């Protein structure tokens, strides 16, 4: 019997939270109105947290709230009350890096406490220490190799969570404050301005410039462990975490749905499971940087660096979201997210059906007039399609290009 791991997704707001859960996440992590490491995201209000937990619990799923900043003196006041509010609103756990939050939570609430990756737990002794302090789960540092993860699981009886997909920090979490120095925005209090994505001029010790074909940068490729999911399930990892509370609805839906399928396919029948290149293609098309396994395979050499300057472009693949489908007329009502037109070949995916490849035929506006192109943001249009669609299914460009370097 295989223990099926939790699939944990990011959610920047209620809409993305509902999509993540609908597309197959077992749990979501969100930022609350204070003390969260994504200060620039639109974080959840307490009322929204209440709505989020009510919604998630109705699906037998969970909501974790990040309380993972490194506290300064000023943030100590009000901490206990804030944690009590989270408990009152029935969050399932808090994700924490500063030990003082752990102590306050365990002393004053019944909240489960997960230790954030910000604490950079990389070894057995550290994991044992935190278990003794009452932490119920550790999000390991992203620098852990598969062997190190396995050693920690085998030697410490605690839930282990690891990242499986998303952007990578260039430095050890907690040890990079370049943002503080270059922009005055506090990286350990949610203000990271991603200096690691900047270009710099590099010089030797004699102040002579060292110049490659592309500028010097700290920028790393993204993480993708799609191919290693079966191995990670066998290792006994409790929770697979997807990075990206600032990511789009489309990104969350795509990534969650792919990993959901892989986890289910392997857990349902380990013997017949085969790696599906099509899933890899979907992830690749959704990314704006190359994705590789990185530290999981013990690799952090130049193959992990990303030297394309800041040429990554925003993803234009997401064409629209299904608002409704009329089974009598076979008419789908769509809200546009990017330009598309009659004759385009698209893919439609959703949580409850296989990917549908479809050539767009006649498109109608809200008044029933035939139109050739859909170019206005959030424009509502309709088209006929025989396959039954569902609300929140998504339409994307069909293409085959980049590959993940596994």
């Amino acid at each position: 019997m295989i223990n099926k791991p939790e699939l944990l997704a990011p959610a920047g707001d209620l809409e993305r939270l509902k999509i993540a859960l609908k597309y197959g996440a077992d749990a979501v992590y969100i930022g609350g109105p204070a003390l969260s490491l994504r200060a620039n995201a639109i974080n959840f209000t307490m009322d929204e947290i209440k709505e989020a937990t009510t919604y998630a619990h109705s699906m037998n799923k969970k909501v974790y709230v990040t309380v993972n900043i490194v506290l300064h003196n000023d943030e100590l006041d009000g901490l206990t009350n804030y944690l009590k509010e989270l408990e009152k609103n029935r969050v399932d756990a808090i994700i924490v890096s500063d030990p003082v939050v752990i102590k306050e939570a365990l002393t004053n609430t019944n909240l489960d406490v997960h230790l954030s990756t910000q604490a950079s737990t990389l070894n057995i002794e550290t994991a044992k220490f935190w278990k003794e302090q009452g932490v119920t789960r550790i999000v390991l540092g992203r620098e852990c190799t598969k062997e190190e993860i396995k050693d920690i699981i085998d030697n410490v009886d605690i839930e282990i969570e690891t990242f499986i997909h998303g952007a990578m920090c260039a430095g050890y979490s907690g040890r990079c404050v370049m943002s503080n120095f270059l922009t005055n925005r506090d990286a350990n209090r949610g203000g990271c301005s991603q200096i690691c994505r900047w270009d710099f001029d590099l010089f030797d010790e004699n102040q002579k410039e060292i110049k490659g074909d592309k500028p010097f940068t700290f920028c790393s490729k993204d993480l993708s462990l799609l191919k290693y999911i079966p191995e990670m399930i066998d290792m006994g990892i409790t929770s697979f975490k997807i990075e990206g509370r600032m990511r789009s609805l489309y990104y969350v839906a795509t990534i969650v749905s792919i990993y959901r399928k892989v986890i289910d396919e392997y857990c349902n029948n380990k013997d017949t499971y085969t790696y599906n290149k099509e899933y890899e293609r979907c992830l690749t098309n959704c990314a704006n940087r190359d994705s590789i396994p990185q530290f999981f395979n013990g690799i952090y050499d130049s193959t992990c660096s990303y030297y394309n300057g800041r040429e990554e472009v925003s993803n234009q693949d997401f064409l629209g979201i299904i608002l409704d489908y009329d089974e009598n007329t076979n008419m789908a009502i769509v809200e546009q997210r990017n330009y598309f037109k009659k004759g385009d070949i698209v893919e439609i995916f959703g949580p409850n059906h296989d990917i549908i490849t479809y050539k767009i035929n006649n498109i109608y506006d809200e008044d029933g007039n035939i139109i050739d192109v859909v170019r206005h943001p959030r424009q509502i249009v309709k088209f006929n399609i025989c396959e039954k669609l569902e609300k929140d299914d998504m339409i994307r460009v069909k293409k085959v290009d980049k590959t993940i370097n596994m």
Partner: protein
Amino acid sequence: MNKIITLPSDFNEIEKTKDLVDGYIIGIENMCVNTNLCISIDDLDILKKYTSKDIFISINKNMHNSDLDKIKEILIELNNYNIKGVLYYDVSVLSIYKSLNLNYDLVWAAEHLTTNYNTINYWNDFGVNYTYLSSDITEEEIITISKKSKSKLMVTLFGYLPMFVSKRHIVKNYLEYFKLEDNSKINYMKKEGKTYPIVDNDIATQVYSDSILNGIKSYININVDYVILNGFDIDLDKFIEVIKLFKSVNKNNVLEYYNKINNMFVNTSLGFLNTKTIYKVKKNDK
């Protein structure tokens, strides 16, 4: 009065400064970052020359499973020397330390995480008697911490400040990728007229601030146990001059000395001593 200790670059510097300072921070090879002088565990006997000084040993890198045996070996070996304490970042050092009966103290030196008095007291409850304060906090915050924390405190008031540590070899990877040659011990990265020292050694890539912290004014305002002066990438003669100024500073001459240091270097600053970093959670207006 705050004691003065430095992060020496070599033993020549120690010889030249031993009558000026109260102690030193020295690292153990392959076990530390942001530490200028690192020695092998086999060379610890050299510390016996400096028994009158407060010696702190740094093993402040992020630890992996493969480091755990080495930590134990180092902690036990250090018990044979008259050291004041061991600086650590990773909690594994504390765990192993607690399993042994050692006669020196631990210093919670988690760089940018040592930012409030309650967390300092949390670690103090585990027997960690010293904290090396973050360089990202203001003088006002340091003063509050010194009033409300149970631990003895250290704070850097001079030198380039560490701002990044990575397991990745950021410089070496760039050289390798573009097939470039360079064996510099320190490189420099530049952006918008500012220059940042970057060191990529066997352990990690470490990046430092563009400016030299000149915190001599804070020296007379704060009450901590140790003030740390860091001579990393600074001319030794000038560094010795700075040490002398810190040694003799008082309320009457502090402004003059502050200006003297500013005039010795083109790129000094007050760091975060008088500037709070921005922390503001974006409002949700819904």
